[in-house]
């Protein structure tokens, strides 16, 4: 993977307690869009990395776990909240600080959605405003 800067492709998933994805977003610069083909593979790679995270999180207490797994030339970074919501990011460039800031800000948005008594923690997040804010954060920190 290339290091620091360069336009990376990012695939972001929030996984709730029951190992089901509750939110997904892709941040890919226009010139790299072969997104349709890789979308399924991305989900598979992220899902496989979940096993690594689930084991790691008992030996490593920081919320931001940084890079937890690799697949070919892609990296997977993870961030696990107190309630074990896992924020998984598949990326092809290193960007530790940008990713940390991204995860931290999405974390706050996530808690706001969670506080809604009509939202069950294992339910998909359908709020368009949430999606818009996450995409804005992606633009700000990841690309």
């Amino acid at each position, binding site marked *: 993977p290339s290091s620091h800067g360069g336009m990376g492709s990012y695939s972001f998933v929030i996984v709730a*307690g029951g190992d089901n994805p509750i939110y997904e977003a892709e941040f890919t610069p226009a010139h790299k869009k072969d997104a349709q083909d890789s979308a399924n593979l991305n989900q598979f790679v992220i899902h496989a990395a979940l096993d690594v995270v689930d084991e790691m*999180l*008992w*030996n490593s*207490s*920081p*919320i*931001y776990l940084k890079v937890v797994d690799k697949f070919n030339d892609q990296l997977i970074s993870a961030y*696990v*909240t*107190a*309630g*074990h*919501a896992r924020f998984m990011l598949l990326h092809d460039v290193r960007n530790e600080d940008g990713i940390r800031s991204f995860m931290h800000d999405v*974390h*706050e*948005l*996530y*808690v*706001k*959605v*969670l*506080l*809604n*008594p009509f939202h069950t*923690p294992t339910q998909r997040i359908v*709020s368009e*405003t*949430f999606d818009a*804010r996450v995409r804005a954060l992606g633009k700000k920190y990841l690309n």
Partner: protein
Amino acid sequence: VRTAMAAPSKPRQANIVDRPISKGRSEVSQSAFAYLFSEFIQYSQARSTTANELELRLEEAGATIGVRVLELVALRDGKSRRETRMQSMLQYINSTIWKALFGKTADALSKSVENEDEYMISETDPLVNQFISVPPSLPNLNCAAFVAGIVRGILDASGFPARVTAHTDPSEPLRTILLIKFAPEVIAREKALAG
């Protein structure tokens, strides 16, 4: 005939996702809480046939809150680490969570001598029971089952699944004991982590 539906009304507030998370320093009047709690108990009682069923309903309501209070308090405090050990998690609930909910730390946290998977949180005169008098016909009812549910919600969400139940101390009727019984996998993992 003109109706009030002539034009869509502007939203008065920004979307919840755009509003800042409250700092958590505001308080709710205990009377307001007691009134709401009493209505909820009556609502649950109408739908339960036994005291046990009623307690289960209170626990379920508490569990939905537990998940949220854990995430909210951890975010507000800027907690950058998760609890990975049983006793630290219990301490966190005993102190930080209790302060956020009730303005004080819990009275006592203790470990059972007979069973390695059991812990107790005791509270004399729990806030939620302040205005509740249990009729003699329901001797085993403790409405702090609601708080037991909150604790269970927190433990389940943070990877320490447990059964949590509320009991009235037989020797001290105003004292509630929350009995926490951890799932076997938690005990096994603790042993492995202890090395």
